[in-house]
């Protein structure tokens, strides 16, 4: 904790105080400003991707009434919607946004340990977004290869955007990975090196644990995507054959020979599966803290929660080929990957139990962040359980590549993390802006989002049971697909429109409250963690004024027996004669 000591002694942070508007808000090295920059960019690009999904839903729901998009555009929107949501929204917002905001504040640091690199991380991320958006302005438009970008079709002529779009996509991904690496090294180093006095690893809030482990996963997984992107670029631009076998394309024999399309899939999913947890682990952590705070109760089984995060993180590297059961890989892999995949369900299920057990015997304040957190438990339970269908190789066989998959991953990787993001935005909004959001609009947003998304995705599972394939521009006349499926598709589209519209309520609330919201106190939820104990709200540059906080207890001392208040901040010293729970000796001095 050398950094903390130096910072304390020398008042070093004053040296970095920004002087002008530009250094304060544009080229800022303050982790909080960078967090907001990351978050605003991610939300903007996420809204754009939501717009793409609405175009797709109008095509699927009312194929005869709207001729808004051609098959090219449909596949381009499918691709960009998926890629933007997974990478440029979720990864960026959880790690670049909340990781940046919460790590220094929750650990009691003045900033990230490499502020300049942190700033660079955001600007390279923004560049990657701009490059991606530029693909809409090139002759053939963006790539329509599906977000998995499987070769050969990603770079062959029958796929939209195989000329320029795929190149732009791969370059943008490479830039994103550079940006992520700069940010990620920062997050890991800050957690390991810049925690304040008394903040032992086992006293860290689960938000920090989730973000920390997710970042390590990202640092290990993104390189696989980077090399896959570089290899595909070489295949596309200079005619190598990493992923390209001999083929007949448009009646002409291709120049390629000997490459393996399945190799790409292994590389992609070696990144792609940990990516699920790069998004999920920060969500797990943040929702744990939100639940504990609003339930006024310690998170149930803290140590198990930490070990579950670590176990899930480790296991996430040995389950990737469950995305490839029908890829034509060696079928004997199915035994191994089905087993590891179902094993990962055990620590994941324990996390769900512990969240629910945190509610059990609590004192539940059903504030807006709490509603979103409870909504998350519901949707995540649903999405996790349907994962047991797809993770089990035999059960996956009829369901793979159908709408069951679409329903499953939107439930578990779309709706669930987004509900946590909303919970987190509402929860930390008073700290970030110094104002309270409008409660009524927040609740309206919650109800429309939860009920709307469930009506979108629950029916999709049943269309999948029936065998309706995903990634179809139109079902056409297909014997086993009855007319009622089209009716359901129209209903799903209407639900999607409602959900999209309800996000406008959220945006309005955020902007309106920024100016007209009630002034927030420094700790409106009576929370224990350090970010709520800053001397100023919103926290000033350097976070802590003259003196760094000192930590004396774990992050979950809510409703401790014999104490006057129902929460004890982590900075609260343990007074003599206090009741210390037998199990807690590890957590207290």
């Amino acid at each position: 904790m050398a950094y903390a000591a130096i910072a304390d002694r020398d008042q070093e942070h004053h040296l970095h105080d920004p002087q002008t508007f530009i250094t304060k808000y544009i080229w800022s090295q303050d982790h909080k400003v960078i967090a907001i920059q990351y978050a605003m960019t991610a939300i903007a690009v996420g809204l754009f991707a939501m717009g793409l999904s609405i175009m797709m839903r109008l095509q699927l729901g009312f194929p005869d009434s709207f001729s808004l998009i051609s098959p090219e555009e449909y596949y381009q929107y499918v691709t960009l919607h998926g890629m933007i949501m997974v990478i440029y929204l979720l990864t960026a917002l959880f790690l670049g946004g909340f990781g940046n905001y919460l790590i220094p504040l929750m650990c009691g640091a003045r900033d990230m340990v490499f502020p300049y690199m942190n700033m660079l991380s955001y600007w390279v991320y923004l560049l990657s977004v701009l490059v991606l958006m530029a693909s809409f302005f090139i002759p053939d438009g963006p790539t329509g290869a599906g977000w998995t970008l499987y070769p050969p079709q990603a770079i062959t002529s029958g796929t939209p955007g195989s000329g320029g779009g795929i190149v732009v996509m791969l370059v943008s991904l490479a830039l994103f990975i550079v940006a992520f690496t700069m940010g990620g090294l920062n997050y890991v180093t800050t957690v390991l090196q810049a925690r304040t006095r008394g903040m032992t690893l086992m006293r860290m809030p689960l938000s920090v644990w989730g973000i920390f482990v997710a970042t390590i996963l990202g640092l290990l997984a993104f390189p696989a995507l980077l090399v896959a992107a570089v290899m595909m670029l070489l295949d596309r631009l200079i005619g190598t054959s990493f992923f390209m076998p001999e083929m007949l394309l448009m009646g002409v024999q291709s120049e390629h020979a000997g490459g393996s399309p399945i190799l790409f899939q292994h590389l992609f999913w070696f990144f792609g599966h940990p990516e699920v947890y790069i998004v999920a682990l920060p969500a797990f952590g943040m929702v744990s803290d939100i639940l504990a705070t609003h339930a006024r109760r310690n998170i149930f089984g803290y140590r198990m929660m930490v070990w579950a995060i670590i176990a899930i993180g480790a296991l996430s590297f040995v389950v990737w080929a469950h995305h490839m059961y029908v890829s034509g890989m060696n079928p004997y892999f199915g035994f191994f990957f089905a087993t590891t995949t179902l094993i990962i369900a055990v620590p994941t299920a324990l996390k769900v139990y512990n969240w629910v057990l945190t509610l059990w015997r609590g004192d539940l304040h059903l504030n807006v962040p709490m509603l979103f957190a409870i909504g998350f438990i519901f949707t995540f339970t649903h999405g996790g359980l349907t994962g047991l269908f797809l993770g089990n190789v035999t059960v996956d066989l009829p369901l793979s590549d159908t709408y069951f998959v679409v329903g499953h991953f939107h439930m578990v990787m779309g709706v669930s993390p987004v509900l946590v993001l909303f919970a987190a935005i509402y929860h930390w909004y008073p700290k970030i802006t110094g104002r309270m959001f409008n409660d009524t609009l927040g609740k309206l947003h919650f109800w429309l989002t939860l009920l709307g998304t469930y009506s979108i995705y629950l029916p999709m599972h049943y269309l999948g049971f029936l065998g309706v394939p995903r990634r179809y521009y139109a079902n056409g006349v297909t014997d086993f697909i009855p007319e009622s499926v089209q009716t359901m598709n129209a209903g799903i589209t209407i639900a999607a429109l409602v959900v999209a519209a309800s996000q406008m309520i959220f945006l309005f609330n955020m902007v309106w409250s920024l100016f007209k919201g009630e002034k927030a106190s420094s700790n409106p939820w009576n929370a224990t963690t350090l970010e709520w104990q800053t001397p100023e709200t919103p926290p000033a540059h350097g976070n802590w004024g003259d003196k760094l906080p000192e930590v004396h207890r774990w992050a979950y001392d809510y409703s401790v027996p014999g104490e006057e208040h129902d929460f004890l901040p982590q900075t609260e010293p343990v007074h003599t004669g206090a009741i210390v729970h037998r199990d807690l000796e590890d957590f207290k001095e």
Partner: protein
Amino acid sequence: MAIAVVLILLVVGSLIFHFVSPWYLTPLASNWSMIDTTIDITLIVTGIVFIAVNLFMAYCIIRFRHKPGRKAHYDPENANLETWLTVLTSIGVAAMLAPGLLVWGQIITVPDDAMEVEVVGQQWHWSFRFPGDDGVLGNVDIRHISEANPFGMDPEDPNGQDDILIANPVLHLPIDQAIKTLLRSKDVLHNFTVPQFRVKMDLVPGTVTYLWFTPTVVGTYEILCEELCGLAHYAMRGKVVVESQADFDAWLNAQPTFAELSAQPPGDPVAGQATYTLCAACHGPDGQGMQPLNAPKLTGQQGWYLRRQIQYFKNGVRGTQEGDLFGAMMVPIMAVVADDRAIENVVAYIETLPSEPAPATVTGDATAGKDLYRTCSACHGADGSGIWALNAPRLAGMSDWYLVRQLQNFRAGIRGAHPGDAYGAQMRMMADILADEKAINDMVAYVNTL
């Protein structure tokens, strides 16, 4: 409080949806009832957990919601409870995994008496190959593929001579016979799926993958591609006809072998000229077509396409749909063409006729049409000259009024609706992207500029 009620309603609603939903597994038509059993087991185990977790959560919300004076219980850990939950979860997971792995073992173990058939995928069509009398599939190579040899058969390999080639997307299979499908792709990834059989597998260029199943119910089932394979992925369809062994044998015997196909002499234009007198009355002696007689231009069209259409008219696949007035006129005339030999000859004769671009008669916005044509160009080529490998005929320089009428017919389900017209069915799906008359005219106006 509302949230607890809603959670209960969502659980109850999901259960009701499950039981009243008209969408569930299609009736099984293969031996893989065990796959359905693993799905049922998984549904029961996960269903119980879904109900239990959410109802318990709803109970907690009702029972422990904030009231003045309530204080939460403080118990950071409960080793007993956590151990119990771990054990119970592990048992539940094992109950799903064990049958899954057992069945997977059977799925990947092909029985010795399985009959082999090769499934060939390409953008955006299916074709099939049987090993013939010797029971061995001949060697194939991408380098051998040509218009005359679409399967890429090695002409030197004796094992391939008796291979039976099904160059259309309808596969016949005998009932109650184990089938091993060898899956081969000529270009990109595809996926062979018949929902009623439950099993599916990707086709991967550069390698051969496999599946096995035993069809158990007579019927016709759709083959879908379920791995994104480019623009017309959703229109890559085929059919599998499951029938009695006798019906299957009769069908298979009527299919050509590679040797038979290679032995066919090329069409004789001199012999074809005599037959062409039938055509000349309407299409003109020079084959340039006559719009007043509703006869399109023939010259310049690709031979394989003319051959296929003549066969369709002759066999009642085309021109028999209600509403196809002009197609109907072709049926009695083509009935006069004696046999496949005669068709070859007349096509050979048409190919000798010089081709002048047909005059433009359709007015439309070619600039708007250019955007629409992007989709078409994936198969018909950027210059509209047609690509045999994609079963896409020439459009550029052909009679534009005829293109308009055919697009209208595709959209109206007049053409492409006959079960024997698999390629027309594909065009029916693709023509749907042209929303109205204006879109059709614009697109055709653009084709006129090519």
